[in-house]
């Protein structure tokens, strides 16, 4: 089935199974491999993208439902919040293996875009869906606070 997807502000016509998860269409059809596969059942958050500005687990979203919506991946996220998040992530050496971090950054960005000054409880609730097996959580939290400080300075 032919679907037109808007990804990172570009339209793409893909021939995809309407029931294919958005994740595999982004990765295999569009070649955008920054969004990762970690579990396939919406438990780990590695596949997180933005759809119309909201965080979505792309492994759990059928591509047919994404037609006509604005999809943003790690490669294309560019808001002030996103830049502050990525900068804080690098400044604090958050990453270890890095595989979960696209998803972490997308979730953190979604949080800060709506709540520029999140409490620790806000952070817990927004980020609890993103698993990090390297347990970089302490630095993720610190980086979100650092990005917030920069955004609200």
């Amino acid at each position, binding site marked *: 089935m032919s679907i037109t997807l808007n990804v990172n502000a570009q339209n793409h016509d893909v021939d995809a199974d309407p029931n294919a*998860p958005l994740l595999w269409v982004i*990765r295999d059809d569009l070649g955008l491999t920054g969004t990762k596969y970690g579990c396939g059942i919406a438990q780990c958050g590695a596949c997180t993208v933005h759809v119309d500005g909201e965080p979505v687990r792309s492994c759990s979203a059928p591509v047919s439902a994404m037609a006509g919506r604005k999809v943003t991946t790690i490669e294309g996220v560019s808001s002030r919040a996103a830049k502050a998040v990525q900068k804080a992530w*690098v400044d604090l050496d958050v990453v270890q293996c890095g595989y979960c971090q696209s998803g972490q950054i997308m979730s953190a960005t979604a949080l800060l875009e709506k709540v520029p000054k999140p409490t620790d409880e806000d952070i817990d609730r927004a980020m609890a869906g993103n*698993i990090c097996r*390297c347990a970089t959580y302490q630095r993720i939290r610190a980086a979100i606070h650092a990005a917030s400080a920069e955004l609200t300075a």
Partner: protein
Amino acid sequence: MHALMQAFGPEEQEEFANAFGLAPAATGTTISRRTVLQGAGAAGLIIGFGWLAPMGARAAAPEAEGAASGPLVPNAFVRVGTDNLVTVICKHHEMGQGNTTGLASLVADELDADWSLVRTEYAPANPKLYANLKFGTMQGTGGSSAIANSFLQYRTAGATARAMLVAAAAQAWNVPASEVKTSKNVLSHASGKRASYGDMALAASRQQVPSAPMLKTPAQYVYIGKDHAAPRVDSVSKCNGTATYTIDVKLPGLLTAVIAWPPSFGATLVSFDASDAKNVKGVTDVVQVPEGVAVVATGMWAALQGRKALKVQWDESASSALDSEALLAQYREQAKQAGTKFARPAAMHRAPADPATTIEAVYEFPFLAHAPMEPMNCVAWLHDGMLETWGGHQFPSFDQMLAAKAAGLPLEKVKLHTLVSGGSFGRRANVWSDFTVAAVNVAKAIDGRAPVRVQYTREDDTGAGLYRPMYVHAVQVSLDTKGQITEWKHTIVGQSIMAGGPMAGMIKDGIDPTSVEGVSPTSYDLPMMNAELHSPVLAVKPLWWRSVGNTHTAYVMETLMDELAVAAGQDPLAFRLALLGKNERAAGVLKLAAEKAGWGKPMKSGVAQGIALHESFESFVAQVAEVSMHNGKIRVERVVCAVDCGVPVNPDVIRAQMEGCIGYGLSALYYSEIEVKNGRPVQRNFNSYRALRIHEMPAVEVYIVPSQVAPTGVGEPGLPPLAPAVANAVAKLGGPRVRRLPFTRSALIAT
């Protein structure tokens, strides 16, 4: 559940072991891991010998994979280009633990390189150049040994390049070499002469390669030991989606395969019907491989749909009996029987007849899967009479040899591209090279028509076996009226990780050192230790899991220490210190952790501290866990961690590894177990094989002991003390003495 996972026959054992210098020597000495680890100890790593193999002595330059090559290539580890970039070739696998940054720091420091001009690449498979010096002649990463074995080697590599640049400048400027200064990629002289390394690289390449360049004194370090001087080299690419993992590799015509794996350990394929699978759009092949049945397709979704449509019949008659609960019961029985001795009471020791207190306890540990974020995978491409693979090749020596065998090609026709991986925790370091061989087998099965990536799903990965084995410990420890330990009987039951494989030579007198490390040897003076081991053999292949034997031995030893202290009416810290004899480094971290945690100060109601110490991989770590309890459910609020790992090459990486070990260990303590029922692994994904999440992460403080001793590892040593420290706090809070993990079995975790 891999068809190839059977014990190597004696010829193959010998073949591999000889290839990697792991065989018991002809003289009859057997290799213990301590021997292997100590063999390349400080005394052996004096500068300027064989393992740097200067250019003239070698036939071919190390392969360039990407970045600028030459002109200054004095050895296999560093290149300086006319573009002024310094490229460090990293012989170790980056799975997140930061050794890329560490190895680059070692070179950059001695070379006086500008950190922003340093680039890194991963070495090809070439054990002659890139062996892990602590492993013998094998190329591989593990045992928290990367920085330790590379410390002098990589520094010398950098110093060599610097010496040649200096010599070239001295020549060009007609000044003594001793007057040429280097700093941040720039050579300079008091007379005002200046040149970048890039400008001088060609001239430097014509200089004599020095055999023993001077190394810096610690006072001269600019990166080593300096906080934030050398930030991680892989941060940016991992934050903007550009870092390439095996799952991301793109090649012309690349196909994706998922395998229908045996459903139980030891099940065999009876038959399969591919007709529906082949009709799925995008499926190109359905082929039988030794691992199972592979569905090959143009993309992952098509492959998954194809596998769903595949009908496979398995014979589980031989495999369906395995049950983890029944196994535990068997282990408990075995623990009552005499085993193979691995510790004997010292000759002078005699157990008095009348102990004041005896503690008897049985501890039970489940199968653990590693569950790194990136499930296992590998890309294999057979073309032009050769094989190329892309993967998280943590053991290139084995991966290359086994890939060559599977492909029927000579070693020199097999080229490995080692990529960063999405975590390993031990999983990718295995002498069976399961993911590599699977990819080669599928590539072969489609006649090398296209490159193919075999991708495990999360369920495949969690269910593949290669687990940290189940273990049971049975102990009986007695104290006299003065609180002195008078008797210590200890029996361990659990699979030997080394048995049946090419590292079986490490088993000495029937004892696999990885089954007992942490009980024996131990930091404590326990001359009365009387310990035995049983090593059952199962259809589930075992594997090391971050910190290996210490994952269970530390829990037993350190919770026992607390129980004994309580029985003796002593403070757990003082009780331990009294047993550490002259082990100053162990005592040092224990006291530091206690001091920084405010040990002994009154805690708020419902909050308690537990302490633990463990020495592993030659590093010393002590932790104090501060735990709160509310309605019987616990929360680990804070962990104070003290680590002595010798020279701290990258302090922030060390802190990050301690944080990571604590989080990984806490995750396992709370949640992790793989049950086996009817031969099948039960937990397959993160809904049931749960992982720690951000709201459960304690606040972690890390204190690094200043040291000039040669560096030792940090990838694993932070893990063993965590679980017992928490368990000790739980007991102090009035909670149970947990003897069977994970904690969810004791209803201690709020969900």
